[in-house]
């Protein structure tokens, strides 16, 4: 093992062990430089028809947790949300795809409108 390998392995060990610590990691060594690593632990979206469209149209701008953080909205609310994402923020959603995305959200994280039941 090279010296570099050893020191990296040692750092890894320290990093793992220190994840027990509930406090924040020690401040940066150079107070002028702050670095942030975006975590990559997004939960997988549930399998259902339309999933690939949701991945392509929604997850460009935000992670799946943005969907999971919401309550199980009725179809009406999900429809309005998808519409807002499209019209207000320019989400790349083709007109013919809107219903598929709403169907996916209703099926995996929503419910039908009360009056429709």
């Amino acid at each position, binding site marked *: 093992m090279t010296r570099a*390998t050893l020191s990296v392995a040692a750092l890894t060990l320290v990093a793992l062990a220190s*994840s027990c610590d509930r*406090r924040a990691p020690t401040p940066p060594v150079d107070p002028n*430089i*702050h670095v*942030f690593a975006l975590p990559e632990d997004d939960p997988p979206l549930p399998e259902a028809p339309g999933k690939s469209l949701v991945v392509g149209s929604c997850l460009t701008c*935000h992670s799946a947790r943005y969907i999971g953080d919401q309550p199980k909205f009725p179809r009406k*609310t999900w429809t309005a*949300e998808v519409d807002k994402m499209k019209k207000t923020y*320019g989400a790349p959603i083709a007109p013919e795809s809107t219903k598929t995305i709403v169907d996916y959200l209703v099926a995996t994280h929503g419910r039908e409108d009360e009056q429709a039941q």
Partner: protein
Amino acid sequence: MFRLDRRAFFALAGAGASSLAFGCKNDAPPYIDKPPTRFTEKALDLILHTDRPPNLETPLRYFRTDITPNDAMFVRWHLSGLPLSIDARAWRLRIEGHLDTPLSLSLDDLRAMESVSIVAVNQCSGNSRSLFAPRVPGVQWTRGAIGNAKFTGVRLKDLLVKAGVRTGARDVTFRGLDRAPLESVPAYVKSLAIDRANDADVIVAYAMNDAPLPLLNGFPARLVVPGWFSTYWVKALTEIRVLDAAFDGFWMAKAYRIPKTPDADESPAELAKETTPITKINVRSLIVRPEPDETVSPGRAYELEGIAFDGGAGIKRVEVSTDGGATWSDARLGADLGRYSWRRWRATWTPPGPGTHAILARATSTAGEEQRATPQWNRAGYMRNVFERVDVRVG
């Protein structure tokens, strides 16, 4: 460049993992394949709402101190293109627009100017959105999209004087280093009317609790507008622009708006026709102890505790009810850290016997503003300030 010796890496990683398993008392089980998300400069136990962009809520237990620690201050970003690395030496704050002398200031330039410190409540417009009925879309905060900290920096007013604002100035806009993920997504730009911008309490802060701002809270400098919701407290501030016209950008004209009705109340069946930008924090209290899932012992004195705050008048009175709102008595108020700070309250309660008891709290500001007895509702989930309530199990 070097490559890790895989065998050595896994052996050591394994050793690290077992120390994780043995070393963490009171921690959640160590799911080695999915460790809890750690955010730079942040405590591990913040409540994760979303990771990209990051939105983290502060658990109630952190509100047992008057000053919220930097690693526990809540985090709210709108756009996933937030700055991932900032070198404070290269950072500049540009002050441009309807001015005699546009400026480009370094952090050292700011530090060389007269500094002011102010303790202020930093509260998200949508704090407690998840408690709205019916529920509304947005980050589903419970009660922890709030914190109280000492902010140090320079008066915005001093910067504007230095830049020589020309007559006819109307609005001042603020922009940070964050970028939209798509061109069609509006950049996060907020504005203050020139008179508000010239208020001596508005500062460009480069320190929170005497330390540099965590990157997720706006390093190296952010706007602090005491008494107003955090939507104006633009993080990683990089551009201040003085306009001789009204600003009509998306985040003022279309987002962060409330019904133009008393307490921002409307109903899903009848949405208010007129809306206006959200501004001032309305009076509210929080119950910090007991927490919703806490069980307390009968017959033993218990110290109820919480905080109360408003948009800058200061808190005059907090009342507590231990019988679901039938009778009320005054709580004791704690240290006064300034009119923009929250104020601690305490009240002693001896739980009468086993069962569930509804504890309520309501605050009144020195301006006479009171909390609502019934919850308001609005489409965006803003400004909740109904009497606080926690149902406590005694047994």
